[in-house]
């Protein structure tokens, strides 16, 4: 659902060769049954790759000692692609068939591209075999829309159900909810997945209407709200009232949870509905068409609903919202929908659609990078969107990062004395992160700290030095003056060299290792 396109030269080429060899007519659309597993995987991972939400973090679940899999709270990158992105999950579409015609998406119905569809068992096997070889942490399943949102979502549910119950997979699972699918399907998947997400696609309803004529804002926000409610209720049921407490799942509870679900499923068979859209994928399995006895998102004690939380994604640069607009939307999503993460994806014009801006360039990637930096400030540093930007100043500075930008515009708060300032004041200093701020607080109890000491604790002095004192003294004789500091910061962070395709890593895809180091595992 979230995909916004791809480069299919390669797969087309392959298709053509294979098709010729087998004496089949060469056509854009090839029936799934005729395609080898390799070809399917190529098509369906290629079509999923623009989804950036590829982290496996957020839930710590020990193995249960019996079946395969555990999850690790801080996320694991198993490999890195040549574009520098972390590979953590088997990220695929169930199908790239689609009845919708979103302008930005390679799978839109009006495109003539090779199409393929997995079966639930194929996905299960692939996930398990990749997992056994330590290639991945789990599965990230999304899909184009086959026949109808419900039909598609049922197939996805069947897949996840089988993976958990028949293949007994205990690793990480992230499922995209299909907007417009029945809330019962969303709920049932929620009990099996670690994370769910619904893509907002664009910051405004207007943008969405223009570029995704078949989607509407309501169909996106509804499941988002449903998932949020499910998570909240579930937290209460499990006695967790603080929304920032990460759920730690132990084996006993997890097993019990699985059993409950299984029993419910067996019991529920009696209540199976056969609505006009229901479909029975395999005669023997009668899942995917259950109605919930609870009548909604009540949740049950000791059953975990989307324990790793909910995320969403916005495409940046296809429509003309300002950064200010975007981070306000982000803030609202965090506050009102309790999202775990908002992801941003610089727009790539895969369809060479004349209505849309041309493909990503360095500026697009830089913008995406700035948004991630600002996002981080909102979530962990106590900043508010309106502190970072305003109507009059609606775009981030392309030369210095949002935190430095804020600092040079608020010099009245500086300099900050390292040996006295409280935690939140320290956090606002450029060059001091969450970890180093904590270390400073812990270490200064044993004696006052010098510049040398805080450097060892991870403070980036080349940025921090303009804003701090140690024992009342600045590191060098620097001026507390906006222009002066800005120039020096820019000199430290030369923008041109960092654009994508250039020589440095700084502005390329964000990945968790930039922020989270797992040294204390």
């Amino acid at each position, binding site marked *: 659902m979230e995909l916004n396109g791809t480069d299919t030269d390669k797969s087309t080429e392959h298709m053509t060769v294979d098709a010729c060899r087998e004496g089949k007519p060469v056509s854009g659309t090839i029936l799934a049954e005729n395609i080898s*597993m390799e070809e399917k995987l190529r098509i369906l991972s290629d079509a999923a790759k623009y989804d950036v939400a590829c982290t496996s973090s957020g839930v710590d679940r020990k193995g249960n000692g*019996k079946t395969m899999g555990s999850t690790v709270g801080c996320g*694991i990158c198993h490999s890195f*692609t*040549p574009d*520098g*992105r972390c590979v953590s999950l088997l990220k695929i579409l169930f199908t790239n068939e689609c009845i919708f015609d979103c302008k930005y998406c390679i799978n839109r119905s009006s495109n003539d591209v090779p199409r393929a569809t997995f079966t639930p068992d194929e996905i299960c096997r692939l996930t398990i075999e990749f997992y056994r070889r*330590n290639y991945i942490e789990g599965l990230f399943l999304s899909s184009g829309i086959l026949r109808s949102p419900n039909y598609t979502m049922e197939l996805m549910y069947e897949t996840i159900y089988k993976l958990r119950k028949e293949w007994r997979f205990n690793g990480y699972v992230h499922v995209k909810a299909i907007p417009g699918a029945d809330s019962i399907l969303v709920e049932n998947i929620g009990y099996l997945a670690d994370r769910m997400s619904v893509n907002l696609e664009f910051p405004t309803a207007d943008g969405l209407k223009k570029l995704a004529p078949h989607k509407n804002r309501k169909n996106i926000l509804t499941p988002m709200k449903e998932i949020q409610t499910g998570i909240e209720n579930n937290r209460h049921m499990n006695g967790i009232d603080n929304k920032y407490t990460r759920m730690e799942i132990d084996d006993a509870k997890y097993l019990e949870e699985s059993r409950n679900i299984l029993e419910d499923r067996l019991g529920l068979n009696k209540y199976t509905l056969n609505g006009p859209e229901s479909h029975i994928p395999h005669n023997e399995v009668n899942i995917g068409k259950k109605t919930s006895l609870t009548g909604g998102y009540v949740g049950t004690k000791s059953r975990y609903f989307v324990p790793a939380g909910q995320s969403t994604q916005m495409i940046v640069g296809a429509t003309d919202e300002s950064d200010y607009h975007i981070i306000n939307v982000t803030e609202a999503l965090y506050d009102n929908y309790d999202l775990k993460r908002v992801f941003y994806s610089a727009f790539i014009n895969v369809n060479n659609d004349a209505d849309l801006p041309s493909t*990503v360039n360095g500026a697009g990637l830089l913008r995406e990078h700035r948004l991630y930096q600002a996002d981080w400030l909102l979530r962990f540093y106590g900043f508010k969107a309106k502190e970072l930007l305003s109507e009059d100043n609606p775009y981030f500075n392309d030369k210095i990062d949002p935190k430095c930008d804020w600092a040079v515009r608020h010099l009245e708060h500086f300099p900050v004395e390292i040996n006295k300032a409280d935690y939140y004041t320290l956090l606002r200093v450029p060059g001091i992160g969450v970890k180093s701020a904590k270390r400073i607080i812990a270490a200064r109890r044993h004696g006052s700290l010098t510049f040398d000491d805080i450097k060892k604790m991870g403070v980036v002095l080349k940025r921090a030095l303009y804003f701090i004192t140690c024992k009342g003294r600045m590191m060098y004789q620097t001026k507390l003056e906006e222009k002066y500091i800005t120039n020096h910061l820019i000199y430290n962070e030369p923008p041109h060299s960092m654009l*994508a395709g250039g020589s440095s890593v700084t502005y390329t895809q964000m990945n968790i290792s930039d922020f989270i180091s797992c040294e204390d595992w």
Partner: protein
Amino acid sequence: MEEKLVLLCDGTIDGILTAVYEGFVIKNQRFGMESREYRDNIDICVSCNYNSYMFAEYIDIPKDYDKSLKTAAAIRKKIGEEAYNMVIKALCHYDEERASLVFGFLVRGFKLGKGVVNMLGDKYVMKVMELSRKAGNEAYRFIEHIRFKDMGEALYSVIEPKCRVIPLIGAHFDERYPNENWIIYDKTNREAALHKCFQPWIIVSGDAFDRSSAFYDNISGRNSRNLQCYEEDNYEELWKTFLDSLYIKERKNERCQNNLLPKWYRKNMTEFM
């Protein structure tokens, strides 16, 4: 001049912890009370030749599991889990001075208790912290990048780390694959982790390893030469397919990839072979 005492032991964790035990016994005998002040006079050497210090006194310490266990228990109880983790990770590092540094760290730890881990101003604490971080980081890399091959009877993996990572990563894979037979063979440090389906995992090292080393070399040989006795692993090809189609050509940035995944780690990774 300062008198030096050098305890000699093998480089295993148990060997070193035994030496630590003896080190404290000697320290209390010779440097007890006010008589003589202790100024880090005791070194523990893992691969010493006898002339590191011209006038030092050398004592051989044979490995003793009882003493090693006692040391471990004392550290956990008196200095805490965090310090214990730090010590174990630091001892997995290859630094030749690791044992002496850990001893110095523990001397301070037993005096000061849990707070010692924050005393980064102290040379010993800082160094042990550094070693432990380096070993921990490397181990984490292997948790991410180890690749298993399906050899039929077991999942099998060869690694060539710099530090001893097996003691640090075994538990992770135990959690991950309780229902599989698996083997991780560390070529550099000549040891292996073995896990049999539904049983606790074990480390095979030292003599026990040497006695069976032919076995490991044999399977690693089969491994690399890709003999026909094993069906070619179809999923390895599928994995490469997946990675290849996953990356966005418009965003290619190999520099970034190299930074995140240094070439050195790629040696035994399926996708780079």
